[in-house]
């Protein structure tokens, strides 16, 4: 049964998928710090308001995974912002997140060299994101 994207239930499922992945713990063993995703609103896609998602990663473990407010999102070590359609492209692997950053389709606030050094971790969590059975806002009324 697909879960509505960017809801708390979906965040819980995403967290569980990361925890269940056999390779994640080893790949992410060096990663320290929280990541926030900011989804810009797009009423035409059933996203009327901005959505803020906060995810805490720490040396292969995962902590708090919540839908949050703007202030909490901005407290994350890394904040990535983009239009809903771009995030969906990333989830579907139609657009690589690194390429999206370089092309300006996603914006990031945070330590860029750190992300580059840990690019395998970034790719892994995106890979797992694509495995969560998801119902996207523009796929339902």
């Amino acid at each position, binding site marked *: 049964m697909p879960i509505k994207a960017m809801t708390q239930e979906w965040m819980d499922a995403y967290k569980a998928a990361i925890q269940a992945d056999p390779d994640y713990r080893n790949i992410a063993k060096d990663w320290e710090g929280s990541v926030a995703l900011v989804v810009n609103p797009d009423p035409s896609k059933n996203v009327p308001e901005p959505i803020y998602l906060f995810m805490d990663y720490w040396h292969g473990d995962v902590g708090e995974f919540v839908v949050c407010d703007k202030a909490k999102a901005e407290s994350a070590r890394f904040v990535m912002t983009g239009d809903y359609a771009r995030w969906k*492209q990333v989830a579907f692997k*139609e*657009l*690589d997140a*690194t*390429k*999206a*950053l*370089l*092309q*300006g*389709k996603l*914006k*990031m606030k945070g330590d*860029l*060299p*750190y992300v*580059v*050094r840990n*690019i*395998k971790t970034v*790719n892994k969590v995106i890979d797992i994101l694509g495995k969560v059975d998801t119902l996207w806002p523009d796929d339902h009324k």
Partner: protein
Amino acid sequence: MAGGYAGKFLRVDLSKGSWDDFTIADDVLRQYIGGSCLAAKLFLERYPIEADPLSPENPLMIMTGPMVGSGFPGTSRFSVCAKSPQTGIWAESACGGTFGPELKRAGYDGIVIEGRSEKPVVLSIIDSKIALSDASSLWGKDIYEATDELKAADRSIKALVIGPAGENLARIAAIGNDKGHFSGRAGLGAVMGSKNLKAVLVKGNAGKAPKADDDAFKTAMKAAMQEIKESALAEGLHMMGSDANMDLGMVTGDVPVKNWTSGGEFDLANSLSGPTMREKYLTKAHACTNCPIACKRVVKVEDGPYTAEEGPGPEYETCAVFGTMLMNPDLTAVIKANELCNRYGMDTISCGSAVALAMELFEKGTVTKEQLDGLDLSWGRMDSVLELVKKMAYRQGFGDILADGAVHAARRIGGDAIDAVVHVKGLEAPMHDPRGFHGMGLAYMMSNRGACHLQHFVLATEQGMASWPQLFDMKDDYQGTTSEGKAALVYNSENYGILANSLAICHYVAYSIKPETLRDAFNAVTGFGFTFTDLLSTGMRDWTLKRGFNNLLGISKKDDILPKRIMTALDTGGAAGSVPDVDLLLKEYYELRGLDERGFPKAEILAVLGLDDLKARLYQ
């Protein structure tokens, strides 16, 4: 006169010790713009292309473009052009730094150097006074020493200098600009050495070349600065330099490992990466003239066996060729190898590739310790590598064999040594694996100076650093390990990217700004009023002209190939199991480019591009 141009070129005859100015008509500039494109036009018109590259008959051209010296970001560039002593075909090597804008300030768009001096000389263009002076006391000095001496009395002078490798006619010799910027590829330092020309000095007093529309230029300039400020690519380059590619490239299969025989060495990449250099050895970022990105690294190594004084740091290419290619995890050894290549004046890609060949042959027993004067050339032995680099510059022992690059070395060694060299048309490939990015493989096959990542923007478009759907039909995201759709991507990325070497502008700036902004700035400077179609047509003319130059020297379809090693799939890494579909790539590309079955531009293409003289020579 068209805007942006100084309005004259300097011709120097070293055999006679004389010089004069010449001009080029506006309609010719409009067709060929400047830089390496204009150099190819002049070469074909005025010089014998069959001449030995190290003979007095081979001209050495140092060319700027109309944007150079305008103040627009990334326009510090100049191209050095000649027939290559390494490959025997067209050679050009673009360089950033300080020389290009200063040459424009001196009132020249370019310099064409003919003949050969009897004794070592320095050519100087200082405050409108031109002179050839004796350089006997400088001959034998390395680039850092000679540059310091030449600039001792006046630090504002900009210098182009060769080192011992150029003097000794090493066919991989480079030319250094103010110690930190290099025209590295295809052996142009040896051409300079063959002319007994140790250095070219320039200091200008002619002011900036007038622009066609100052207000439009200011608008384009403002837009460019804002786009660079907002560019994550530019930010990454500023923070990590070009070596930001090391970690990312190891994941995607871009980075060659152990002389192109392995992949997926993530710890090795981590130890050599831009973030590591930044954390441990970077003292500051450095910029070419008029560049807000400042991607150049200045580094210092205080401890360990490879200490280095503060100086220019290695680019990604150097970190790969002296790092992953040699199975060397020690970034300080890479920094030292970079310094030695800078001082001796050798292209790091060719030098490191020749060393990688030697290491592989040492492992196989084809090359022995005795031949290497006792050096242990096992993988990763950087103490031996640094000794070997010196031997190459001075043509000592086995270094003499490697000094002309990996292809010449493999041919002298014989047997199947050539199978261990990754090259196209005699030029060793840069550090981007076509098995990870098939479009790059096609670009290597079709680049006019041999395997090259800088005659086009394929690196940016195929790897997703830039997306320009307004310029030509392209996707946001290309899968690297597929050949489908890549011919069109390469063709278009060549037509746009090759302009970087004629305008002349830095690739990184061009990747970071919108094509509209570059077009508007170009038009504001020149007054040409070019559309995108005009710009891409100029790129087509540029590519076709140089292809014709090479066709006249015997290049044909048989040379448009990838080497055996690249056509062998890797077992590990991001490119595992993948090889380019060469037949598909070439078939589609030949159709787009209008090449006939021999690999010659078709007569109708030459006619459309206004290359009637070339058409007459190819079809006589």
